[in-house]
């Protein structure tokens, strides 16, 4: 189980780097008043829900 959690954390690090790169594009090339900011917020919220939910379920089971 330890290795699976470790693998998941490694995946999360890659996911974080990818997300930061995507956010950089949104911030750098987005325009004032467009939907990039909203998309970044929604994406972050969904990601957080999935990650927190995963750890919560791992603790419960």
């Amino acid at each position, binding site marked *: 189980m330890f290795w699976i*959690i470790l693998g998941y954390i490694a995946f*999360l690090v890659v*996911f974080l780097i990818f997300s930061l790169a995507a956010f950089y*594009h949104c911030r750098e*090339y*987005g325009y004032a008043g467009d939907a990039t900011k909203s998309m970044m917020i929604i994406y972050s919220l*969904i*990601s957080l829900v999935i*990650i927190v939910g995963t750890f919560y379920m*791992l603790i419960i089971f």
Partner: protein
Amino acid sequence: MREQEKPFFPGQEKGEKVVFFTRRHPLSFLGMFLFAFFMAVLPFIIFVLISARGIIDLDPTGQKIMIVLSSAYLLFVLGFFLAAWIDYYLDIMIITDFRIVDIMQNVLFSRDVAEANLDRVEDVNAEVKGFLPTVFHYGTIFVQTAGTARNFEFKSIPNPYDVSKMIVDLHQKCLIKEEKGELCPEPKLKKTASVDFKKPIKEPIDEKNNNSISHDDLEKGGGAEF
């Protein structure tokens, strides 16, 4: 720098007005949206169906592995969706009062910005093809330019006939301006040397290698030496 003074797009000249700004029609992203949704939902539907029939019975460790794998899969699909959305949303067509700018975002870390002066426009075509584009009024605009300047293809642009007409109108206005002596500035992004466009360019005439026919040549009846 104040927010108001910030250029609307990279390379915007001082005093250059953005006449038109558009992205691809939202329906052009529908296919990718449905695909991402299908990818996210399908494995869980299959899992629920299998569990309901009692085909698989996981122990607590197996359940934990399943949770971690499901979470990683969902995050992967979410990341895929964001990359596809950026690819769609950051493709932009800008028309200013003297040029066309085409910004193409190819997923992440690949971006192509092309531009051409409106006076170089030779031909503009609008094409609406397919059921959804016909019903929702979006299509492709082809802009052919003169000389070595690249041609443009703007895909899934809303109201393509109106936009192509606008490009032609702006092209006409640009030509009228040029006739009056108000030159349209050259694109800044691909400019390699600074040139004062308000001054007429007068190249020094090399008397020896001048290929034009002079009055003396005509009288001699020979012509210039080419």
